[in-house]
């Protein structure tokens, strides 16, 4: 299972999903109405490392963080 965490203002509990790639995870997340509007604007980290490759593979125990638009300072 892969654990997915939604950071900052995305009001959504973490979830566990059975997926093997970012592509599979993406399809799963786009099905969720409360998450869908955020997804185009979000960046992604896997195990706290920012990911740039949409083909990134996921393995059992991975932790995926969904990072919405930021504004520090």
């Amino acid at each position, binding site marked *: 299972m892969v654990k997915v965490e939604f950071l*900052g203002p995305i009001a959504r509990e973490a979830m566990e999903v059975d997926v093997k790639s970012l*592509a599979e995870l993406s399809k799963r997340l786009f099905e969720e109405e409360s998450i869908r509007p955020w997804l*185009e604007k979000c960046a*992604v980290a896997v195990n706290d490392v920012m990911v740039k490759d949409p083909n990134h593979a996921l393995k059992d125990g991975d932790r995926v*963080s969904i*990072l919405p638009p*930021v504004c520090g300072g």
Partner: protein
Amino acid sequence: MELYNGPLDVKEIFGRWLDEEAKSNYGAYIPFVGTIRAEDGIEALSFDIYEPVLRNWFDAWQARAAERGARVKMAHSIGDVPVHTSSYIAAVFSPRRRVALELIEEFVEDFKANAPIWKYDVIDGKRIYAEDRSTPMEGAGLLASARDEK
């Protein structure tokens, strides 16, 4: 990198940083202070931070600064920070002023664009996400691209 609950004690932190580097033979020390302005009826700003990714971002910047013989430092607040107090300070130490002047700009601007920190206006005690002032991080939209992969 230092994180604090609530407003920063700017004088203590800058004074300590100065002491820490007093014998490091840096010729230039450029501090930056971000202060929360009273505007749009806010009483405070509030911040969420994702610390593991922020630490990675900061460590990458420290390595970039080291390549130029310089050192970066920063402190940021978590939670509520009232108007007219500070939530973010940064500094560059370098052997010469030119590198420090360039780095402080790059460091602060990249911080605004890519540090995993979320800002909320606090009005009548309620936290409202500052969506219109927020920017997608580098690499945003990956999930939309991933959806189109096989």
